């Protein structure tokens, strides 16, 4: 029975990981684009994205999940059939906005002198960003980023409110039915999965921080 439960939990955790990975891979670059829009010289663009970020950060993620899933009904369409896709969309938008705010803070913390030094050396704007600014920004935002990423791992369990997504918490609930087991045991097992994975992430971020500590900003 133990192995059976473990297998079910592991399958659920795969779904959790999938949601986590998709969100991270998409939200990291999209967040950077949003950050650029928020810092754009073109005022309307700046304001549009500031409002979007305000709305996304100002409402619960769970509400956003429901809106993405059932929102189409507002326009006379049917609710989204694929709840996993809906969850991905909601998570990507939500996390892209949080990342954007972190990126923006990081980019704005780099002194003007770094840009100007690049400019007087004849570098292009892209070169200045990619060769000079980016690594300094990454170094500065690593700590807040690790916080967000760890929160994301745990937030994925919100997806089970949409139904049809058997991530690890849902899997733990399901497994009690199959094996007539008190709910608390598989849930504790789910907790162990989270702890182990987040432990690994913490080590990874620690490693990255150490790697980038060869210079001081």
């Amino acid at each position, binding site marked *: 029975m133990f192995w059976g439960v473990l297998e079910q939990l592991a399958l659920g955790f795969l779904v959790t990981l999938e949601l986590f990975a998709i969100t991270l891979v998409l939200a990291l670059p999209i967040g950077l684009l949003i950050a650029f829009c928020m810092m754009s010289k073109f005022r309307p663009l700046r304001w549009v994205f500031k409002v979007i970020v305000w709305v996304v950060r100002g409402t619960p993620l769970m509400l956003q999940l429901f809106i993405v899933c059932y929102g189409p009904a507002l326009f006379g369409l049917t609710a989204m059939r694929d709840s996993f896709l809906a969850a991905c969309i909601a998570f990507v938008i939500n996390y892209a906005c949080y990342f954007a705010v972190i990126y923006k803070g990081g980019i704005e913390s780099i002194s003007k002198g*770094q840009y100007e*030094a690049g400019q*007087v050396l*004849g570098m*292009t704007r892209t070169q200045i960003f990619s*060769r000079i600014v980016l*690594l*300094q920004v990454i170094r500065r935002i690593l700590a807040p980023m690790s916080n967000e990423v760890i929160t994301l791992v745990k937030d994925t369990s919100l997806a089970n409110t949409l139904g049809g997504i058997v991530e690890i918490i849902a899997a733990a609930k399901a497994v009690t039915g199959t094996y007539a087991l008190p709910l608390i045991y598989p849930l504790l097992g789910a907790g162990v999965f989270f702890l182990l994975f987040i432990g690994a992430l913490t080590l990874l971020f620690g490693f990255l921080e150490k790697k980038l500590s060869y*210079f001081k*900003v």
Partner: protein
Amino acid sequence: MAFLEVCGYRKKFGENEVLKGISFSLEKGEVLAIIGSSGGGKTTLLRCLNFLEIPDEGELRLGGETLFDAAEKLRLSDTRIREKRLHFGLVFQQFNLFPQYTVFRNITLAQTLLAKQELARKKREFAAARKGAPKERRKELKAEQKKILAEIRDTQKERIAQKTDELLARVGLSEKRNAYPYELSGGQQQRVAIARALALSPDILCFDEPTSALDPELTGEVLKVIKGLKSSDSTMIVVTHEMEFAKNVADHVIFIADGRIEEEGTPEEVFGNPKSEKTQAFLRKSLEEPF
């Protein structure tokens, strides 16, 4: 005709007119010292020369060619501004070294990027040439071109490394080649910044108070390096509060007050026999300063 001619530079920030018509000229190989009290517009002038700011009015000629003319109301593209910038170098008061790169990389970065652009251009030319060639020749041609490109890349790399080592020797930092900026003293950082600016062989090298952010015991080493750069083909503009340095090194001195040139001439004229009252007052004050 002088090597550098600046005519009627004006610059406003909002309602605040910071440069109110600055004109001067400079011969090749000369050193110009700019002195003046705080807020007079010295930094703004250097920033305008380096196109970090675009003057509202005025004209700039370099080697007889018009490099900038505010009367041409064309908005300058980024690429055009970058080309113009390469004629000038600027050493900042705060050094602004790139913290994530070693001393060596700090100096080579910009050159390497320029070399890469050159290589990319060559590659495009080659690709076009291949298209024009008969089909059966193309493969052979491609192999030849690849060899040429590899050769260019190697010579570029070697040339840059050699030049950088020469520059490091010139600023006395050969043994710091692989150090990171945070491992250096302020004076050493500023010397790296000087080498970095020299690496692109600008026609005119500008310094904005290069020693003002340094402890007094470190200013000497930086000023010595700048003095050592003086030669027949390096033209420099130095904004400084070091009157002794201006006296000893400069060929020309300009005193700027409130966005205008109040006084200009040889060091002997400006320091020994200033005509304007403002200059006299400024010099009196700056001589008293240490106490």
